[in-house]
């Protein structure tokens, strides 16, 4: 039997990327998560799967817009016409979502709950217990039915497992306990980075987010195709993403002029990239002051280079100044004084105050960019960037 397993679709959750401000990109990214959902259904029909499994956080919140719900309904209907049912559990994000708020989505969509935890299709029993509260701090595993003998047993669970960086601990559950429960396959959700956990004849897969939404989500981009037969359980990723966030390192070692920088940038941006996938790149440039040159000019060069590469958009530029000797080194006394000043408590206090004032003026959603915890990184970046500017500005006199 074949199943297509997806999780953390976060339908209609926006992409946190400046790429969408580019009109051409915005057009291609319009309704990105809906396009990904459509790709998922296309893949299910093409692979002739027996069912599509949604392992939580299909919606981004508990009050999904009717249009988002309609988008899911339309795609489930498409699955239904192909004879493929959909099985869904709710995750922490959409735990409070009333799926029937605007009427039943589709007869072909089965929602697994504590009251109705099992869906049977052919030789498989699919068990799942969706979230009924936004915060579930206890393991849900004890509530899962025992495996049904003589059938393929598949479990759907939205869980942080033993814990994962950047993810709140929801429905924590030890991987060993999962594997010991007796199911053939665990279709997991919640953690946005794809991972496979192999047991003895059993398999658990965290499929990752099918469409990364920011530069912090660079390890998803797919659903998982699961095959269960006499040879056992196998899984493989099915790419779905439209846009991939990527960190692109560029080392400018040995480069001393703009032509050289331009060449390095073009080489880095033109590196291997998957077909039909747009790239939002955070470029991390490394070099000495002389190698990096004027940061404003470098940024302009970077954007110009990106315009020459189809499908690549610059998300941001980060500079890492190397300390090795090289041409165009900054005025030592000035740079040293700046670093020394920046290390003083007074300077840190003043910088903290500046950040606080600026942070207060920002919309709440993005105030984290100037968090107190970012002070050291911002001071270092400020000193290095200004040193670069002073260095190249003076050289240009």
């Amino acid at each position, binding site marked *: 039997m074949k199943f297509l397993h997806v999780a953390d679709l976060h339908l209609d959750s*926006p992409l946190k990327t*400046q790429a969408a401000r580019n009109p051409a990109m915005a057009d291609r*990214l319009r309704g990105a998560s809906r396009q990904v959902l459509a790709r998922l259904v296309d893949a299910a029909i093409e692979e002739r799967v027996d069912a599509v499994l949604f392992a939580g956080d299909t919606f981004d919140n508990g009050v999904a817009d009717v249009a988002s719900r309609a988008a899911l309904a339309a795609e489930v209907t498409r699955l239904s016409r192909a004879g493929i049912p959909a099985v869904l559990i709710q995750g922490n994000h959409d735990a409070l979502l009333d799926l029937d708020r605007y009427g039943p989505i589709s007869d072909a969509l089965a929602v697994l709950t504590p009251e109705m935890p099992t869906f049977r299709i052919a030789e498989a029993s699919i068990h799942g217990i969706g979230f009924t509260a936004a915060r579930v701090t206890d393991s849900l595993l004890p509530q899962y039915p025992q495996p049904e003998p003589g059938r393929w047993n598949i479990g759907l669970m939205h869980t942080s497992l033993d814990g994962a960086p950047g993810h709140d601990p929801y429905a924590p559950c030890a991987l060993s306990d999962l594997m010991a429960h007796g199911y053939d396959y665990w279709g997991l959700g919640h953690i946005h980075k794809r991972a496979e956990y192999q047991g003895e004849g059993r398999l658990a897969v965290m499929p990752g987010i099918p469409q990364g939404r920011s530069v912090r989500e660079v390890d998803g981009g797919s659903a998982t195709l699961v095959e269960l037969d006499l040879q056992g359980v196998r899984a493989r990723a099915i790419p779905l993403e439209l846009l991939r966030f990527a960190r692109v390192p560029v080392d400018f070692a040995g480069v001393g002029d703009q032509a050289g920088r331009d060449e390095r940038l073009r080489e880095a941006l033109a590196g291997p990239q998957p077909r039909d996938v747009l790239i939002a790149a955070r470029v991390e440039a490394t070099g000495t002051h002389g190698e990096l040159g004027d940061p404003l000019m470098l940024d302009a060069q970077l954007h110009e280079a990106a315009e020459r590469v189809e499908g690549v958009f610059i998300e941001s530029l980060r500079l890492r100044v190397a300390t090795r000797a090289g041409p165009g080194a900054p005025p030592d006394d*000035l740079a040293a004084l700046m670093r020394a*000043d920046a290390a003083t408590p007074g300077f840190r206090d003043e910088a903290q105050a500046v950040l606080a004032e*600026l942070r207060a003026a920002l919309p709440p959603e*993005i105030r984290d*960019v100037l968090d107190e915890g970012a002070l050291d990184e911002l001071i270092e970046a400020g000193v290095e960037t200004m040193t670069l500017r*002073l260095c190249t500005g*003076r050289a240009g006199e």
Partner: protein
Amino acid sequence: MRLRQLDLLRYGRFTDRTLDFGDGAGDSDVTVVYGENEAGKSTAFSAWLDLLFGMPHQHPYDFVHARKELLVGATLDTDDGPLTLRRTGQRTGSLSDESGRVVDDRRLELMLYGLDRDSYRTRFSLDDEVLRRGGEEIARARGDLGQLLHAGSSGLSGFAELLKQAEEEVDAFHKPRGRTTTLAEARNSLKALDEAISKARLDPRRFDELRRGAEVAEAACQQADAARDGAKRDLLLREAADRRRALARDIAAAQDRLAGYPGGPDLAEDALTEVSVAVDALKRASEAQAEAEARIEQAKHSLADLTPDPEGLIIGELLAELEAAEFDNGEPLVARASTAAADIQRRRDEWQAARTEARHLAEALAGKGADPGQIVLPRDVLNGIREAAEEVRERARASGDALRRLAETRAELGETETMPDGAEALADALDAFNALPFDPDALARIGRDCETVARQRAAGLPKAWRALADAGLPTLAELRTVERDLKAADDTVAQAGNRLREASETAAQREAERDAETQTGAVVTDAEIAETRARRDRHWAEHRDRLDPETAEVFEAAMSRDDAAREAYGRSVDGRARVIRLDAEIEALQKTVVRRRHDLVEAREARNAPREAVRRLAARLGLDEDTAPAAFFERRDALQGALDAALQVETAAADLRAAEAAQAAAVEKVATAYSAIVGAAAAGDILPAARRLCADLEARQASIASRQEVSKLVRRLEAEVSVHQNALDTAEATYAERTAGLWCANLTVEEMLRKVEGLAQLAEHHRIADSLERRVAQLGAALAAFDVRAAPLREAQGLARDAQVDDILRAGRARAAAAEKTARSIGQAQKDLTDAEQERGRQIRAIRNCEDAIAAQLHDQDQVGGDDPVSAVRALAARDALRAEIARLTAERRTLAEGFDAAALAAEEQDADPLRTEKLREALTAAEAERDEAIGERGKARNALDAAQQTAGGADQVQARAAQLEALREAARSAAITKIGLMAASGALRRLREDRRGPMIEATERAFALMTSGEWQRLEAQPTGTGERLVGIRDGAAVGADAMSTGTRGQLYLALRVAGHADFVTRYGPLPFVTDDILETFDDARATAALALTGEMGRSGQAIMFTHHRHLVNLAEMVIPNVRIVELG
């Protein structure tokens, strides 16, 4: 460096003019150059700049001497002694020394400490314009002031603009209460997006509201439908009753009208049509019958008037047969006979004429009595003969030409010559001699020149210079490195010394302050009150033990001191705090002094290494060990030049020796070759005789080669003659073959070619005669055939046997035509008679049929008045129509009752109120309007619900919002790091400026105070954000430079320049400072002060002042000791 002498050799309007600035001895090195306006002061200054930096391509002073002829020179006092230079307008190598040797411009660059033309002009020259502009810049530009203050030393100029730009970037992102900042605009945009999202998304409560609205609208719509249907039913019932009532009235009226019509069955539907058609047909048939009878009478009269011609008809048949007859070739016989009768005689005459012409031509070609038939040749035969004859003629001509050329070429062959052995060896030997690469005489001259140069270059060098050079000279990079390292080490030591001095002075100052605080007794320390208390306690103990007056006084005094100390302690809290702070400061400063003293020691120790390197290099260059590195370059260049020259001398000598040996060997080879040819050695210089002999042999060689070429040509022409002869033989055989057996077989080719044209004419005439003969025979045959076939026709007409063809035909045709016309008229009259009789019978039958049809339609009908059957049928048809109308009205009335309650309908019919129907109609209209409104409301509600459910849900706006937030996040981060960087850079720059600014400000302050006679005592640089401003202190009040008068700003600017000059001289070394009439707007007091400053400048370097004011010259002589005056006339 100073300028000792400026030579205007060919420059502007000057030729060989020299300005002498002396040797600079004395306290102050100041020269005043006096000249009237247009005397050439600017020209002299321009010449000085051109000497230092080269001449521009477009030169303003080439009006007397062309640019390429311009020449300026100078004698400079340098650390290594006087240096005389010349500068020309050449693009390369324009700088030379007094010996004309090219001097590398880098020597001047070193002496100018890297200043270029603009930098030198800016820092070491001043005119009134620059002074005025500089004053304005102080008032206007913070950055310019900073550059002036730190010119050439801080390396920080230009940073102010960068920091200002960075600050503007930060402000552009966010500024409190800013409305056009990136952040403010983004917030507005986000607000708009939030509103758009709110509108675009479907809130569940709104969904419920919309759904309820739709349901209410649906119910209202159904209710309106029912009301509309009821009103409609009432109206329909009323309208049916009204109609039935009207129909009953119409039926009764129709039945009354029906009583006035005759009885009888209903007519057939088409009765009126049938009767009308029958009446019309009856009328037409009666008229046709009368017409037919008239035509019968007319035909009978025509037949009686016509007589037939049977013989004429027979003639017509014979004529037709004759006209159908054909001649042998298928053409109509009659036409051929008619043509032949008209043409035959003319053709016979033409035939005879052609035969006569052919005979005359045959006799002309072949003699009297020649038969044209025998002489004429077919066209292909004649063409073949002509082509063969022409080929024979052409081949004969070509063969003759070839024979002639052969004879002429044979005549050109001369006598046979031979070359002697050894000719080539002689030519090779002479070539080898001529190819010798070097002329020993020229090499000797070069050697002598090199020796001269080498001597010149070695002059002034130590005797052992060659050993130094052979040991290896240091590279320029080494020299620069050592010079730079030593300078850096010196700078480090100087800076360390300054810092130590500053720290020591500060520490001493703090100690003095601390001592001042403590020594006045105003401050009581903890130790002091501890001591007074201890003393008081001690004396108390003593007094308690002894209790005598002495101890009491002592104790009282101790107690008073303690009380006083405690009181003073209480009063001196602030002072004590100051002392504590000063102690802490002093301790820190003392540590700093120790640290900086250590730094100085380290700096001095670190300087030992570059000093040692300098000493080593000085030794390698043969200089004293304490020689400054700046002198190394010249010495290295001199050593290198001398070494190069010496090596060139040695190379030239070796080249000369090699060239002489090669020349002797080459001459020997020439002599040997010459002797081998002439048999004896030539006496004296062998080369002329050998060259002559070689020329003779080359001429002979050319002659032999020429004869060989002619022989080859003779052989080629002989072959051509043979080819042409063979072709002629072939052509002659062809001609003979083509004339064989013909009357012309014995004619020569030329005779034949002359007769060819006549033979062609004979062939043409002979062909024409044959053609005419055949034509006459054909015409005769046609006439004979006609005569036989036309005999019966001729006889039937009774014509004579010799009647002409046209007469026979014309008479026959007329008789036949008349007979045929009569026969046709008789036939037509008989046909007309038969047709008219048949028509009359048909019309009689038609009349009977019409009468029968009319009678059938009126059968069984009651009597109708009048004889007109159509009127009768019309009356019956009107009766039938009335019957049908009554039936239709009755049926309609019955139909109207269908679907209605019979009793209600009857009641409604009974109600004849004329207003009731209108009332019901109005009620329906109102019900329909209400229903339409309800439907509209339902549509709106449904549309609203549908639209809400079909909305895109604001996903696009949410995405746009997220993208905007991300952009804002990145911009905020960028603004934050820029702001932080700006803070760090501003602080660091302030500190750097503080470190470096002091001496400049102080020097400027002194100069400014002097020039303003003490009016402005102090100057301060006050920071203003990322920049700074210069303020002067007058009467204790700070006045910004921008608030000073123009003249005062000019003086301030001059003071800055004086200070800058002093700073530069201290850091690098002296350079001539040139001013051009900058004091003319100064009053005497300030001019005197400025001149005194100039004198100050002259103590540390050279100052040159151009002026055209005599009184300034006089003032200078008073103010500046030993000032040098140069008159520029």
